[in-house]
């Protein structure tokens, strides 16, 4: 019963979009095939494919180099390499652009050396570069975790059977980590098609921006494009599922984690490749992690110094900093708690009872993640305007939280399932035989045992919520400012120092969350 309600809620935004398009005034087919629709679609697909491919290569290479070779400072790099995850892509893009523009650190340094670097990073190249740099951790993390859990015996056997390290990688390791690479690339693909901020800053018009731009004056087109984006995302997810499943069937025996040992994997001596490998890792980290931070810090410092020296004061008072910070944190926590509470019954259904209903509900919830946040928010905003019994919700906080939960709930599903699985059925049986009724069992046995897993899921949702831009822009109640929307607003108004200061606060919070959740917990650090 609860599960059906959850499924209905998660299906609402997608369903409403489809219904609007089909029941719209203009013929949906004509809308979908017009060149004004097709060209942003083409740009979106182009960018998403490019970014997924480059992130897959970069993420896999970094994972392999940091876990399987004698790279100097492996342990340090393993901590640092996934960290660009903390940058929302629009913050990263803003940092790059502002660093290269007059007044930015790169531009001014180059000018001191006599170069004029008023080059603008923009278009496909700019969007591709920035998105690759900030999404490769989505590939790196699962691949590194998989590499760490891979039984070392496979590689040892291949070496003993006469393969050189490179051959071992292509014949033994790659087939084993293939599914992780695919899963990571899928996330990158979904991230890219639903990205709004970075592509906007790079003046590369993809579907999300067309949807955003046309939502007020050409609503039918906006919805048609939203449906297109939704279908694109779902098709890619379905394709990935099919391929992975076929692959899993083929390699079922080899992908079992049964023989994971504590032993260290064989390390490949880099030899004369040591310098290029170190250069690659350091270069990526420098570009994706260090340089945006420096650029932002430079702008922030510049603004602060300027106001101290009696120049133009910062257009930022304490309230402009504290209110959005507070809003960001509490809406993140609220969303996380609600998402976990909503997803927990689904996790119970799928892991404990393995019911068909549970599987269906699970699919709906997971599909929610594939729907771009922009589409979810757009759909919900217009739905509340037109659904008469619900119109009191227009522009209210519940709509925003609802949009977040639908979009990010899927991130909590996996951890919630793991959490439910972490309570052995025998533990419950033991409690029952000791006389504990249902409520006492839930309170004293199940919840305490599930807590770490649920907290991890909630943390992931919170992290994503804090970084989300387009859904927040669209569905926020009027006057509700979060760090993400404030960074966006100040950048659009070209108050770069103010933007930098707010962005640094957002980064600090999300870095703290990332450290707690991703880096400290993940087993790839072993």
């Amino acid at each position, binding site marked *: 019963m609860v599960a059906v309600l959850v499924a209905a809620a998660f299906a609402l935004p997608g369903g409403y979009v489809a219904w609007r398009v089909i029941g719209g005034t203009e013929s949906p087919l004509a809308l979908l095939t017009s060149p004004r629709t097709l060209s942003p679609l083409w740009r979106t697909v182009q960018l998403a494919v490019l970014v997924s491919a480059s992130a897959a290569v970069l993420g896999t290479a970094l994972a392999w180099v940091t876990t399987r070779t004698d790279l100097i400072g492996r342990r340090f790099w393993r901590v640092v390499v996934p960290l660009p995850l903390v940058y929302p892509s629009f913050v990263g893009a803003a940092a790059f652009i502002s660093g290269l523009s007059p007044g930015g650190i790169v531009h001014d340094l180059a000018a001191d050396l006599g170069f004029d670097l008023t080059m603008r990073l923009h278009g496909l190249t700019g969007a591709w570069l920035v998105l690759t740099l900030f999404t490769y951790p989505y590939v790196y993390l699962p691949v590194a975790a998989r590499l760490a859990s891979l039984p070392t015996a496979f590689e040892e056997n291949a070496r003993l059977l006469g393969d050189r390290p490179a051959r071992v990688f292509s014949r033994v390791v790659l087939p084993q980590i293939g599914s992780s690479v695919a899963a990571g690339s899928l996330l990158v693909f979904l991230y890219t098609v639903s990205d709004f901020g970075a592509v906007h800053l790079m003046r590369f018009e993809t579907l999300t921006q067309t949807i955003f731009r046309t939502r007020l004056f050409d609503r039918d087109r906006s919805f048609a494009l939203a449906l297109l984006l939704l279908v694109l995302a779902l098709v890619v997810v379905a394709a990935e599922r099919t391929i992975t499943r076929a692959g899993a069937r083929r390699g079922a025996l080899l992908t079992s984690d049964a023989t994971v040992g504590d032993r260290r994997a064989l390390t490949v001596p880099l030899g004369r490749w040591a310098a290029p490998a170190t250069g690659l890792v350091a270069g990526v980290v420098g570009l994706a992690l260090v340089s945006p931070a420096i650029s932002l810090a430079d702008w922030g410092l510049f603004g602060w110094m300027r106001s101290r020296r009696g120049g133009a004061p910062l257009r930022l008072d304490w309230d402009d900093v504290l209110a959005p910070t507070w809003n960001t944190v509490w809406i993140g926590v609220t969303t996380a708690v609600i998402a976990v509470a909503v997803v927990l019954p689904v996790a119970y259904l799928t892991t404990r009872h393995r019911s068909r209903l549970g599987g269906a509900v699970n699919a709906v919830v997971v599909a929610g993640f594939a729907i771009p946040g922009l589409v979810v928010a757009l759909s919900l905003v217009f739905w509340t305007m037109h659904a008469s019994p619900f119109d009191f919700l227009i522009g209210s906080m519940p709509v925003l939280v609802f949009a977040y939960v639908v979009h990010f709930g899927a991130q909590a599903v996996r951890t919630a399932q793991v959490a439910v699985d972490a309570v*052995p059925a*025998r*533990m419950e*049986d*033991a*409690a*029952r*035989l*000791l*006389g*504990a*009724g249902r409520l006492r069992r839930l309170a*004293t*046995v199940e919840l*305490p*045992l599930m807590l770490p897993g649920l907290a991890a899921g909630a943390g992931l949702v919170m992290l994503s919520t804090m970084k989300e831009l387009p859904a927040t822009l669209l569905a926020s109640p009027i006057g509700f400012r979060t760090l993400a929307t404030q960074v966006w607003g100040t950048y659009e108004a070209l108050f770069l120092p103010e933007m930098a200061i707010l962005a640094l606060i957002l980064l600090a919070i999300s870095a703290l969350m990332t450290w707690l959740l991703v880096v400290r917990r993940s087993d790839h650090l072993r």
Partner: protein
Amino acid sequence: MIYNSRTLLGMLNKRVVVPRATAENLSIEGLSVAYDGPPVLHDVSLDVAAGEMVALLGPSGCGKTTLLRTIAGLERQMAGTVRLGERTLGDSYSFIPPEKRRIGMVFQDGALFPHLDVGQNVAYGLPRSERRSGRVTETLDLVGLGGLEDRRPGSLSGGQQQRVALARALAPHPGVLLLDEPFSSLDTSLRVQVRSEIHHLLLELGVTTVFVTHDQEEAFVLGDRVAVLNEGRIAQVGSPDDLYRRPVDQWVATFVGDANLLPVADASGTCDTAVGPVAVASDTDGMVGRVIGGPADLLVRPEDLRLDEGSTGTVELVEYYGHDAMVRVLLGDGSTVHARTGADVRWQRGDRVGVTYVGPGAVPLGV
């Protein structure tokens, strides 16, 4: 040693006050259990007297764990009755949920709550008013773990964990104690030690106990009586000696121990077999399933055969176990028999040996 001065036996020798009043008799009648498809348990009946220890023995998948879980109420029966003392726990009309049955159970891996300390684990089944009484300490003292109340289960050894699980099950004075392969997760050396300590304790306490095992030795060592299950039915219930010496059929005979089955044409008096004359047991009167007269297989245990100089057969294989040895002898007719000899094995592969039956009389079993 994991536990030195505070061993369980040491505690018992100090005469811990042992309440005996809680043991109840358990009676199971015509029990059938099915999930989806064919029944897992078929018309199973078993009576366990108050204070008795009964082993459920069988190969994996025979339904012994299902039987235990049905007694506990963790599975529901299709038909049949489970009674504990005067109470009906479950029959075709009524079903008392496990939390109201007053049954103690120890799971294979202990299933201790990892987030609670040892004291809280033991107190879990006690009524709120008794949690702070001396019952927790008392029970932990019983199992020889006094003073470990504040430890986390994860910091205990496997043997200690099992004993905490036992203390947790015993603390609320259950009417019957169920053990689900409680020693199988322990190392061999530890297993024997923990087993005999718990054996002694349960005898002292006089707790009605039903335990599941797939290990024939464990069933014989611990069980006052053993119920052998095969494919969802009880094949035989009896004392360990009954099962070993007087099994009802060939399956039980071979499942509970090493067996030579020697075919004879007419099972009566003294028969001529491949190892010479073998007397047919005379005390088989009234035993179902045995064949008197006509073709049958005689059950000859390896220790009933003596090897000496002679030429009945050739030694094919010698397996040395320390306390004894098993010798496989290839006979003239191409069949083989196993003979158990003392630890001082005089034979080697290839030796010619004589084989003589020295047992008290062989049980004839239907082919």
